[in-house]
């Protein structure tokens, strides 16, 4: 009985560990997408944040400065996205792709130049990392709790505040918001900055909490899984959170099942389980599992004058 409990606890802890960056990232992306700014650049923002978190923590010796640097880095990328998509009405997908590619290159270029370790940052020790708070073996650092807190917070902001109401309106029909005398651009800028904030925390979690340092391409598609989770959750906070937990659980199972023969099935290919988040999202998008309807104005630049 104890074994079962231990196993369940370990699986839960593993799921939460994997899901934390997804949850943070998804909540950030949710703000951006609900305001009508598509964000395929979550991956890049998170990667930049992870790099600057580890680099700063390593140089200053403080994990907290690392978190600050992560947020600043991700918000800088978010502002760039906003500058291209809101101010200059550029293509949002192109901008996101550009941010991902720049981040993938720049983190390695800067990392190699500054630390001379082939793109890695020095291993972080002691106070340079965020340590578990209550349960030493579960990896429950402050960002895990923050991720759990971010879900009701996001829900409350989006569904229960005046800002949230306007945010949703601007994602559905910016003209109406503009007519009411509210600045579409300023609203959307605030949304992408919130997105940067959360993506920054997600990145910091990867490099200074879950791992002890930055490695090249360490996000490994998690930004896209977060994006999938947003879609899977139909652009709503709690369902998106559920999707993140599901994807996290799949990952935890994939690690557990590596090389294990399941009775009756044989060895389950790990790649299949890792591909499941993408596969499930495609099925959802195809309308086989309910219907995912994006905010109506998502991806459409708003021009004040025609």
């Amino acid at each position: 009985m104890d074994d079962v409990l231990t196993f369940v606890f370990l699986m839960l802890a593993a799921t939460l560990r994997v899901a934390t960056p997804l949850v943070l990232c998804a909540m950030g992306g949710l703000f951006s997408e609900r305001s009508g700014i598509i964000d395929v650049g979550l991956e890049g923002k998170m990667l930049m944040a992870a790099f600057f978190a580890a680099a700063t923590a390593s140089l200053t010796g403080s994990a907290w400065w690392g978190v600050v640097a992560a947020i600043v880095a991700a918000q800088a990328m978010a502002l760039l996205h906003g500058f291209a998509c809101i101010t200059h009405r550029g293509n949002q997908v192109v901008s996101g792709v550009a941010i991902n590619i720049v981040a993938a290159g720049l983190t390695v270029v800067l990392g190699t130049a500054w630390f001379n370790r082939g793109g890695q940052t020095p291993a972080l020790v002691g106070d340079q990392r965020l340590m578990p708070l209550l349960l030493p073996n579960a990896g429950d650092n402050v960002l895990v709790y923050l991720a759990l807190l971010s879900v009701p917070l996001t829900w409350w902001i989006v569904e229960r505040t005046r800002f949230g109401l306007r945010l949703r309106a601007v994602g559905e029909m910016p003209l109406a918001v503009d007519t009411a005398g509210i600045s579409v651009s300023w609203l959307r800028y605030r949304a992408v900055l919130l997105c940067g904030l959360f993506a920054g925390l997600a990145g910091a979690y990867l490099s200074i909490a879950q791992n002890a340092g930055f490695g090249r391409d360490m996000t490994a598609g998690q930004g896209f899984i977060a994006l999938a989770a947003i879609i899977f959750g139909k652009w709503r906070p709690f369902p998106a959170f559920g999707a993140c937990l599901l994807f996290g659980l799949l990952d935890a199972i994939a690690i557990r099942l590596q090389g294990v023969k399941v009775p009756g099935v044989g060895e389950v290919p790990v790649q299949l389980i890792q591909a499941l988040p993408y596969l499930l999202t495609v099925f959802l998008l195809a309308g086989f599992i309910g219907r995912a309807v994006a905010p109506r104005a998502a991806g459409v630049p708003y021009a004040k004058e025609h």
Partner: protein
Amino acid sequence: MSVPRRPLPAWAEIAVLPLVNIALALLVVGVIVRVIGADPLQALKLLVVGAIGSSESIGYTLYYTTNFVFTGLAVAVAFHAGLFNIGGEGQAYIGGLGCGLAVLALDRFLPAPLMIPLAILAAALFGAAWAAVPAWLQAWRGSHIVITTIMFNFLAAALMVYLMVNVLIAPGSMTPQSRGFAASASIPAMHDVLAAIGIRVAPSALNLSILLAVLCCFGVWLFLWHTPWGYALRTMGHNPDAAVYAGTNLRHMTMLAMCLSGALAGFVGVNELMGVHHRLVLDFPAGYGFAGIAVALMGRSHPLGIVLAALLFGALQQGGAELAFEIPTITREMVVVIQGLIILFSGALVNMPRPWLQLILSPRRGGEGVK
């Protein structure tokens, strides 16, 4: 603020604006090079010499160019239909799989004149098939093609890792790669071909796949601007309602555009596997699919522009490798940064320099501009 904007003259739109975009991207790269403590001008010199300084480097530049032409055309064909295909990476991967499977199955039986066209066809079919699913999902189920093609990139990567590690790995091999292709499935290297007609150049990865790229450019130009299907495809991209009114079936056109796009991306596998690696390997698309977006944007989705943009990207790729070799603080990934910045400036921020150019090139505003 409501000063009427006169449109830029066509030549400025086609020639000046892209150059301004590249200049801006290079300016930012210069700042980055400065930040990491190297000399930007020296870096630029090394980059240019590294890209076109010798017959070997020119060979490599053209070899990279070949890949960029394929993925650039792939993105462009979809663009013309109003579709954004970011799945070039996955389509190239699966196209390569098709090419590799055809070769592994038949290279012991077929001579080169049969084997090579068949493998090229297989690459096109597999690439097209991988693009057909997101296309079908968009056309019939209404799911957004950007998201599904992203997902299909990851699915392709997972599938390939599984196949290479568990199924296609050569017996006794430690790394996940297939057995070597037989000689009949090898596309001749350019230096061998040139040597046969008496021209001696240094060996490089450049192979006759570049002819396929030239053929594709011509084919895409012919198809888009000189066939009724191409006309219908472009109409759909400009105005779907008008296309429907003209009797175009948007669903079929979506399928056609995406399948063509996927087939073109799949040819990266031909250049990489039959031209260079001579076996099925992992990770050969190496970002060409994404860079294709930049190539198409810079080349304004026209085959001629794409060739020029692909040459630039090929030169960057090769020059960047040499640069990384010469200056240890600069790594190869600098090329990735440059590619990303070019996508940013010639794609997302393409509108930024337009008012500046308008100010310079057509300074008279107001009265004369509007009638």
